[in-house]
């Protein structure tokens, strides 16, 4: 795998040359500082752009074109990452070497059409599709309650990260989305390529100069800025622990316990925390798995994850509502156990080996490789082998000491009331 970064006036090109996969990915990232007013436009815009276009003005025509090109996969998404928001437009195609030269030309034409020729008439998105997609989005927002895992996670984030961009999900308020007209959406669309965003283009696969040349019609239309942006959120949270329970008609209850991570250094955040989290909640024999699931039979799912951009550690579990108090106490005890040298010693070396296995996934995961080079634009990231080296240097003392910088913040349960 070879990586090349080319900084142009309007965009940064990341070329990741690799023959590991039989596909090629082209990903365009548009990034700017988060503005909550953009949330109602985000998903609605990407859905309108990828549903139809000027040339392919029905869904049927779009999908037929895609299938004709051996099922290329185009997608658009809107996301919130730390202090930033982004639009990501991507296209996955089979390696053009399997086909004649016209294949790549046709693929680029399709992507160009999707990005730059939306289905717009008289200054607004086609009303028939716009109204349909808007109604469907409102319905999908209301339907979030039908999915307990997603709904509980959104509610937990809104409490745990209140006052920061992480408080919001990409699903807007219904009142906000109802106000948007097809012409307002088009006005918003016009800001995408007019210099308001930092633009990064990542190309992953077996690509050469000719491939890049074929992409030039798209690259020429990109207009971006070179603003320096960061994902990391600096926010002073209250020390008060928040307890909240919502009730919904499900069989299982979803429990989230959030801890703040206070003033972690780069080494603590990127190496020590990774070992800590593996021991606590991700490895085969993790403390949470052994104590809450295996010794007390309180759950099937339990684990932990951390957020670097809004420094926090979260423990989650699917439990029976009658076991709420017992599970909360046991989880707190598990986190306390992270100070117990004997327990850490038992799992420490294995945790590092487990992380080494996870790190190898980097080489098998195209999306992870693309995201890593993109993320490097907004935060300090080590390459995978440097990270491995530094994680392997983490000591037991450092893991135990991390407890001094962890404080309980939120206990949230979505209680299943069936």
């Amino acid at each position, binding site marked *: 795998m070879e990586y090349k970064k080319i900084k142009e006036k309007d965009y940064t090109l990341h070329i990741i040359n690799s023959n590991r996969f039989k596909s090629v990915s082209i990903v365009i990232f548009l990034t700017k500082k988060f503005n909550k007013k953009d949330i109602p436009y985000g998903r609605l815009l990407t859905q309108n752009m990828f549903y139809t276009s000027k040339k392919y003005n029905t869904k049927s025509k779009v*999908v037929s074109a895609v299938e004709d090109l051996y099922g290329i996969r185009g997608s658009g998404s809107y996301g919130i990452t730390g202090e930033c928001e982004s639009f990501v437009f991507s296209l996955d195609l089979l390696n053009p070497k399997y086909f004649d030269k016209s294949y790549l030309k046709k693929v680029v034409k399709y992507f160009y059409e999707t990005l730059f020729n939306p289905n717009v008439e008289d200054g607004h998105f086609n009303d028939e599709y716009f109204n349909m997609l808007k109604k469907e989005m409102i319905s999908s927002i209301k339907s979030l309650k039908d999915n307990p895992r997603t709904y509980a996670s959104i509610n937990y984030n809104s409490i745990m990260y209140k006052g920061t961009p992480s408080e919001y999900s990409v699903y807007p308020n219904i009142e906000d989305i109802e106000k948007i007209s097809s012409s307002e959406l088009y006005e918003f669309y016009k800001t995408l390529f007019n210099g308001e965003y930092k633009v990064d283009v990542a190309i992953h696969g077996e690509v050469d100069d000719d491939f890049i040349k074929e992409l030039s019609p798209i690259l020429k239309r990109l207009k971006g800025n070179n603003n320096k942006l960061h994902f990391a959120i600096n926010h002073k949270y209250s020390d008060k622990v928040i307890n909240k329970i919502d009730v919904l008609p499900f069989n299982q209850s979803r429990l989230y316990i959030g801890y703040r991570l206070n003033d972690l250094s780069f080494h603590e955040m990127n190496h020590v925390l990774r070992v800590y989290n593996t021991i606590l909640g991700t490895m085969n024999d993790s403390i949470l798995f052994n104590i809450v699931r295996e010794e007390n039979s309180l759950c099937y799912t339990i684990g932990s994850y951390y957020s670097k951009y809004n420094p926090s550690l979260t423990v989650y579990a699917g439990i*029976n509502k009658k076991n709420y108090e017992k599970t909360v106490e046991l989880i707190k005890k598990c986190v306390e156990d992270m100070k117990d040298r004997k327990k850490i010693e038992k799992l420490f070396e294995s945790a590092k080996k*487990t992380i*080494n296995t996870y790190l190898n996934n980097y080489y098998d995961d195209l999306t992870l490789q693309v995201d890593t080079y993109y993320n490097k634009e907004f935060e300090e990231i080590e390459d995978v082998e440097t990270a491995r080296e530094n994680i392997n240097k983490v000591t037991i003392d450092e893991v135990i000491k991390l407890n001094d910088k962890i404080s309980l913040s939120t206990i949230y349960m979505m209680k299943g009331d069936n």
Partner: protein
Amino acid sequence: MIKKTFEKVNEDLYTEKLKNGIEVYLYKTDKTKNFYITISVKYGAYVTKYKVGKRVVEVIPGSAHFLEHKVMALSENPEISKRINDLGSLANAWTSYYGTNYNIFGSINLIENLKLLLDIFYNTDINEKNVEEEKGIIGEEIDMYKDKIDGLLSEYLNKNLFTNSYIRNTVVGERSDIEKITAKSLNQIYSDYYVPNNTFITVCGNFDIDEVMDVINNYMDKLNLKPKTIPTRIKDKEKLEVNVPYEEITKDLEANRVKYAIKMDKRIFGIKDDNILKDYLIAILSSNFSPSSKLYEKYRLKELMLSISYNVYTIDDILIISLTSITKNPDEFIKNIKKDIRKLKITKIEFERKKKKYIRNYLLDFDNIEDIEYNIALSLMIDGKINYHEFSDCINAKYEEALRVLSLINYDNECIIKTIK
């Protein structure tokens, strides 16, 4: 060892059947630093009753899955658990209707991991105490699946489509089922089905083929297992008629769900290979219900649905075509789909397009060792063999045959599930 090659992608699979009947499948590749090792049994939730010699055994629903939990019981075997952790590997397992799979994913010392997996599989300790303890965990797993609305409605649909079949039970069973499971019942199944000639091992990664075969052969020599008679599964006699043609399920959902299905005898199509039959039917359904179809466009614009998906599956001699829709107008959707399902069609251009999409998926399936293993395991569990010529089957698929299949679909046996508030 026999070397077989998957067409077009030129990917090789080495296979050998040991003298005790275990089959070994080795996929060697240098494209990854990790490895994926599995051992699978061709025993899953589709066995509801079986016969060995003169003995007939009734299986409690959820037993195959419960057994998986007890075989992969790492917390009860600290020594094995420690060895896995010391290697930084990840052990897991899954159960389907047709088989049970135990796996280790790792990057350090493939040989040691292979031995560990064999140790897990062949050193079970299933006793009353640990079976009782497991019931709480599996109970939570069952509740978790019950909260997944689409899975829950599939359960309802299968209960209503079928009168006797195994598919009426879920793989995990109900809480009331698992209460009846005992150490004795699980040990019985282990002894009857977990026999070498009903088992296969798959190794995917970068390794020395001879070394891996030596390890497996030595391990098996020490175990000295002999092939045994594989129990005969006693099939449930299933009627062609739908059990319950229509049911409304009360659920507090924002958007309702409709499941519409038709049940027919798969033998009417005269195609022996279920996979080929399913591929033709999927191409037909895709042409009529995927976003490329006129019907999809019409239904969405008329607000008859938010989404639609389709599925084709066979249960013994029965074939099911099912459609699932999320809709705010379930009655209108049902009224329309009952008419439109009888107007299915496919053009030659559409048929050729579906083939292109299929080719893409086939090529990309070889990018990931877990996908490769999964496809091997499913083929062996369901079909009992691996098809190395899938690519030719696709290229050679004939439009005229698709039309013939289309003409034989029987729409009379309908089954509908609808959610209401």
